[in-house]
């Protein structure tokens, strides 16, 4: 964390390199000067701002979205808890789509390049963003990563967010849709416990369905809970390792890409 103002911006690494913050980002306040001004009779006043805290993130996200749209890129923001099988699902998806669409991946994790390495093993370009102590990707991180990669024109960009069902919900990255992965080894009530994320997602992939015979997980109940939070959410039951539901997911991707092209 930045020792001047407490922000985490100097911990973000893109391809292992630190991003230089703006020079004016950490102007040190000199309290004595202000106290002196107050003593000299400078009156206090109230000013009205009414500014959305997320406005800056959202405006950068809009710029990212424009760039994706100008290049016919379907950008998806993949979100889930840690361990839901996002990376395995992504690897299988890339293997299936390779040669059919231009593809690229942005990987978000607090530390390590492990996930990007797993993606690169498929032959697809992957950029790793390490957020340091940060718990989510934001639009500016994506904006800074994009010039370092070849945009998959008329193809797909998968952004794998930090494994976290809370924080990434609020941050628009410029994606066409958030895709939430819920694995059947988790609780059915995750959509009720983390409603913001399930509300923000357009598609839910219920992963690891090959394990259902060994679990007490109630699929219908999990789907009902997801629809309570988001009646319009599309749900696909899938198994990245067993292959169940992959065809439906790939068809959804192709249809969404058509809309962006």
């Amino acid at each position, binding site marked *: 964390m930045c020792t001047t103002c407490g922000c985490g911006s100097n911990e973000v690494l893109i391809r292992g390199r630190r991003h230089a913050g703006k020079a004016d980002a950490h102007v040190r*306040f000199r309290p004595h000067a202000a106290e002196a001004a107050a003593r000299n009779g400078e009156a206090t006043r109230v000013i009205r701002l009414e500014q959305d805290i997320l406005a800056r993130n959202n405006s950068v996200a809009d710029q990212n979205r424009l760039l994706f749209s100008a290049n016919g890129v379907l950008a998806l923001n993949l979100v889930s808890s840690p361990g839901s099988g996002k990376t395995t699902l992504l690897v299988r998806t890339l293997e299936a789509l390779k040669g059919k669409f231009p593809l690229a991946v942005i990987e978000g994790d607090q530390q390590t390049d492990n996930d990007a390495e797993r993606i690169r093993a498929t032959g697809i370009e992957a950029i790793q963003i390490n957020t340091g102590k940060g718990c989510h990707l934001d639009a500016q991180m994506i904006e800074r990563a994009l010039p370092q990669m070849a945009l998959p024109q008329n193809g797909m960009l998968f952004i794998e967010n930090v494994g976290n069902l809370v924080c990434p919900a609020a941050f628009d990255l410029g994606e066409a849709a958030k895709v939430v992965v819920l694995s059947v080894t988790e609780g059915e009530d995750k959509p009720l416990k983390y409603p913001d994320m399930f509300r923000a997602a357009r598609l839910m992939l219920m992963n690891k369905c090959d394990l259902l015979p060994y679990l007490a997980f109630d699929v219908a109940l999990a789907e009902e809970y997801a629809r309570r939070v988001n009646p319009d959410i599309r749900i696909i039951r899938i198994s990245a390792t067993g292959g169940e539901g992959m065809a439906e997911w790939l068809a959804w991707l192709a249809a969404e890409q058509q809309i962006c092209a």
Partner: protein
Amino acid sequence: MHEMSLAESALQIIKDAAHTQGFKRVKKVWLEIGQLSCVEKEAMRFCFDTVVKDSIADGAQLEIIETAGQGRCTHCGSETRIATLYEACPQCGSYGMQVIAGDAMRVKELEVE
């Protein structure tokens, strides 16, 4: 804890305002936090106090104004107060209340000198 990033964004809004409106010190900050926004009030207080250290808003008093959640039923159209995103409509019992208020996160006002 995304409240840290949100507190940083709030501080950036304050710094931008200091630049355009020419004040040197912030004594009080009013934040509007909707009940249905994804912000935990106490986490926001902790993060705000941390990120403003050594900044123009160091030591500023934080006032959080909580606004109630308001939803409109997508089936019957009735409007009601809601405390969560998964409440059923009290009129017709269907799920899928559209949020019409109470999801905002805003820097409302500053007391400055």
